[in-house]
């Protein structure tokens, strides 16, 4: 349609003429991708580890040796008393304190039951849990070795049968955290930029007074909305492209699935976000209001997207809410297609829901844009 063409032409001119906005649109997201992909990791490393060795025998030293050798622990200090260790924990100087009891070696030799004291700073429960697992894995493996040594000495008793699991990690063999995070962060950037731009767009015209001028023209609502949306749709697709190039070149993220499928899904997804943005724009009077509301939704969408915390572990009511979170679907689809090589049939549920969502949001955006008050 001719009229839409005139609007698109005007919007593009305004976007590319705005010297303040251009870097915000194109440079900032890329900087964020580069920084966040390296920083946002849940791998727990460099745990500040301290110990109290009341035994001071070759065996206790051998156990501590194991911790020193581990890449997860920074063995810091050897505290003489529990008091010192406690105050260090309070100050935040240590995360984990291991206490080796007196007669540790002797008890082991005599095949007596033995207990190690372990204190963990559990302000962050998830981290504390992981740290506890790390410690017990080290202690167990130490346990196994020491027992085999002892058994050799003490003849052939019945050897304990051991069950071991051999994990094979699929889709991300090296357990590279970036492989997991980069597609998700890319999703956030595309969403954030398109939501904020569209959210502030119509309200900006309200502020400068040009919207009234538009409302006095015979332009159709849908022409106006489509003309407004299209440039941001192009920008969103452009961001996805730049992001994918960075993911491949800088982070060497495998792109297993079909690029065409990713683009097809994203093209619909962006409409959902733009619809939400315009909807916000129609209900606000100033750009500040629009920005705050957009942020409100953005924070909820991000934290409930499954990007940082698994949706499966949320309470059921929260899981129900995530059904309305477009970012959740986008994160799922990107991870599935990029890392697992999922096909169209695999992502069909997400695809269908996103499509319906797009229709609803844009319908609401057109409906809520009133030329007459």
């Amino acid at each position, binding site marked *: 349609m*001719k*009229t839409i*063409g*005139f*609007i698109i*032409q*005007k919007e593009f*001119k*305004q976007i590319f*003429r*705005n010297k303040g906005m251009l870097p915000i649109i194109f440079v900032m997201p890329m900087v964020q991708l580069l920084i966040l992909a390296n920083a946002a990791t849940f791998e727990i490393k460099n745990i500040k580890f301290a110990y109290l060795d009341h035994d001071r025998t070759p065996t206790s030293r051998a156990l501590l040796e194991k911790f020193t050798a581990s890449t997860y622990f920074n063995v810091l200090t050897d505290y003489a008393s529990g008091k010192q260790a406690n105050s260090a924990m309070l100050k935040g100087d240590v995360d984990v304190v291991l206490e080796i009891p007196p007669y540790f070696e002797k008890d082991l030799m005599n095949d007596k039951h033995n207990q190690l004291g372990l204190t963990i700073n559990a302000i962050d429960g998830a981290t504390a849990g992981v740290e506890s697992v790390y410690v017990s894995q080290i202690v167990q493996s130490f346990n196994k070795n020491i027992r085999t040594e002892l058994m050799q000495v003490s003849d052939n008793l019945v050897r304990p049968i051991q069950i071991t699991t051999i994990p094979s990690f699929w889709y991300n063999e090296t357990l590279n955290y970036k492989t997991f995070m980069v597609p998700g962060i890319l999703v956030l950037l595309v969403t954030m930029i398109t939501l904020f731009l569209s959210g502030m767009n119509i309200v900006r015209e309200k502020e*400068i*007074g*040009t919207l*009234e*001028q*538009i*409302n*006095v*023209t*015979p*332009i159709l609502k849908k022409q106006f909305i489509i003309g407004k949306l299209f440039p941001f749709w192009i920008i969103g697709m452009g961001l996805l492209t730049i992001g994918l190039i960075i993911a491949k070149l800088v982070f060497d993220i495998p792109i297993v699935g079909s690029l065409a499928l990713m683009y097809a899904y994203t093209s619909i997804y962006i409409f959902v976000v733009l619809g939400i943005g315009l909807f916000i724009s129609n209900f606000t009077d100033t750009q500040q209001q629009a920005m705050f509301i957009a942020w409100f939704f953005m924070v909820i969408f991000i934290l409930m997207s499954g990007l940082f915390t698994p949706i499966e572990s949320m309470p059921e009511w929260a899981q129900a809410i995530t059904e309305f979170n477009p970012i959740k679907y986008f994160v799922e689809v990107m991870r599935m297609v990029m890392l697992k090589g999922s096909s169209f049939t695999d992502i069909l549920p997400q695809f269908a829901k996103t499509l319906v969502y797009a229709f609803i949001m844009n319908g609401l955006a057109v409906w809520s844009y009133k*030329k*007459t*008050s």
Partner: protein
Amino acid sequence: MMENNNVIEVKELTKMFGDFTAVSAITFEVKQGEIFGFLGANGAGKTTAMKMLIGISKPTAGDARVAGFDVASEAENIKKNIGYMSQKFALYDDLTVKENITFFGGIYGLTRAKIKEKTRELTEELGLKDLTDQMVGSLPLGWKQKIAFSVSLLHEPKIVFLDEPTGGVDPITRRQFWEMIYKSANKGTTIFVTTHYMDEAEYCDRVSIMVNGKIEALDSPKKLKEQYGAETMNDVFLKLARG
């Protein structure tokens, strides 16, 4: 349905915001080709009344027909037949003169060829030839207002609504502006204009004066002055507005 050549017919038009009556049952007609002055103090209800006539505000009660269409039910048809220029300057500052003309011409449905022709015509008339590629934001206010007026005429509307078009503009530019108004009125365009400048009221064919949402006086400036025994429109206005 329209008797002879009235292009605006307003009957008992009312707008309420909650309990507050902004426009209270106003009635008047405007003939084709007329320059109709719509006066009133700040807050008298001029802009609200005008917004109903241009179809961006729904009346609470009463009827109004503009260019033969009903403002409540046929607002979009009205918009095809009117031009509008508001006191809040409404061209895009970050587009050039030419781009503004192209955009507004485009959304009024003009063809590219027609827009080109109009751009040439308009810039020649305004003596703007060297400025067509300048950002509108960089032009002085007087220029902006003249361009905005010309843009509101691009689609050759039957009626042009001007909401305080000369606010903040120097006397010479105001004079030029009114010359432009006369020129388009001579071509048969009806002009509906609000203003605070009483010397401008003298230029109008007929004038209505609104006080507290009601039209208190409506006639030619000459007759109004006789009726109120006043020397100038300024005195008429002061007598009425003070009550």
